[in-house]
């Protein structure tokens, strides 16, 4: 299984990569970790005329705190997320999601920017980005623009990024100290995409919910925010009755397609259950 022929470019700077992308046109593709794109090219689902490998571009990797945000270079690998002491302290939800992605070998190569840019609703980072209210820095010929994760994902393999733009950085506000978090993912085996998964970031005030974000993976053409469930929970305690109602409300926007992972109804029920479990775990980790 060898991909169709293509031209290969390995720029050393973001500016060179942006120029190449403009010069080569929309048939050129950016190569990040390659663990979604290369399999698609091997199966001839994709046959770009050229690859622009971002692997040797300086300054696209790394995790740093900037004021009240965490900034992550788009080429930062899942392995780097999983082993980052800064993320373990400030954004443990991101460490938890990385731990559920694929397998060790894939995590050494796969990148957070690639996972987001691919626009696959089966990928795990997009829903987590919604739950964390992340922003994305896109660099193009005209400079940089910053877009919110909410609204960024348009459909299968489709995002707000223009054909001449490169996702260069992810910016995530640091949740308040004492917040609870959980990524609950149901999958058939190691390496599989989620049948359904839920990302939760939860802030309690005393015994009731002050703020909660809930986002869902792989139950529609884009990651989904469970807004009705979020609104319902604010001001309420986390108990069996509120968990049941939140799970029911979170299932409403789901519109998964039938595939070998199950029927649409089954996946929707699994999504509700993932929301329930993620809320329970996030609650157990939150400090009042």
């Amino acid at each position, binding site marked *: *299984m*060898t*991909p*169709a*022929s*293509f*031209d*290969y470019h*390995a720029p050393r700077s973001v500016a060179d990569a942006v120029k190449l992308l403009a010069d080569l046109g929309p048939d050129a593709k950016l*190569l990040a970790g*390659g*663990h979604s794109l*290369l*399999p698609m*090219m*091997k199966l001839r689902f994709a046959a770009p005329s050229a*690859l622009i*490998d971002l*692997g040797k571009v300086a300054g696209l990797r790394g995790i740093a705190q900037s004021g009240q945000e965490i900034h992550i270079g788009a080429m930062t690998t899942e*392995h780097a997320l999983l082993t980052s002491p800064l993320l373990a302290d400030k954004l443990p939800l991101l460490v938890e999601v990385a731990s559920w992605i*694929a*397998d*060790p*070998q*894939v995590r*050494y*190569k796969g990148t957070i920017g690639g996972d987001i840019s691919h626009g696959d609703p089966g990928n795990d980072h997009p829903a987590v980005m919604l739950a964390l209210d992340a922003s994305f820095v896109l660099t193009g010929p005209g400079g940089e623009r910053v877009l919110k994760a909410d609204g960024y994902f348009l459909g299968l393999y489709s995002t707000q990024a223009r054909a001449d733009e490169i996702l260069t950085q992810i910016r995530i506000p640091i949740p308040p100290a004492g917040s609870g978090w959980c990524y609950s993912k149901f999958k058939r085996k*190691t*390496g599989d995409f989620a049948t359904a998964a839920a990302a939760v970031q939860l802030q309690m005030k005393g015994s009731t919910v002050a703020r909660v974000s809930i986002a869902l993976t792989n139950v529609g053409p884009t990651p989904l925010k469970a807004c009705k469930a979020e609104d319902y929970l604010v001001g309420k305690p986390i108990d069996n009755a509120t968990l049941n109602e939140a799970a029911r409300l979170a299932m409403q926007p789901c519109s998964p397609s039938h595939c070998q992972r199950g029927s649409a109804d089954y996946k929707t029920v699994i999504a509700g259950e993932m929301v329930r479990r993620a809320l329970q775990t996030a609650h157990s980790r939150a400090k009042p």
Partner: protein
Amino acid sequence: MATTHTVSFKLNGKPVDVTVEARELLIHTLRERLAHTGPHIGCETTHCGACTVDIDGMSVKACTVLAVQCDGADMLTIEGLEQGGVLHALQQAFHEEHGLQCGYCTPGMITRAYRLLKENPNPSEQEIRYGLAGNLCRCTGYQNIVKAVQSAARTLAAAQPATA
């Protein structure tokens, strides 16, 4: 139009130059051009891990990386583990603990375990199973593979001078 590239990297300590088409997968370069047939082609779909090699301190599935991406890399394959006719502790342990039956997954399994023990010299059973989750074995049921990695970890720890 096929474009070719000359790629230079270090393979088991020795510098190599090889001319490849951009679309050539590393596993084919290793096996067909460089006669390193230790890394196996199993699934060709990034699942089985039989093609695992170690690149710049990372375990990588050589069926899902292009040879051109490896310019300047420092690469280790199963062929590079034995030193001066002496098996690596992992190879010895897989032999002694019956960590293989047909042997097809073994080069990838050992190359992955090598990096796992570099990062975590004293892993728990659960950490070994999680760390080897990208390598499939259809014979052993994994039990003796886990035992072999535990045994190799003990051997390697005993060989290290105690540090303060």
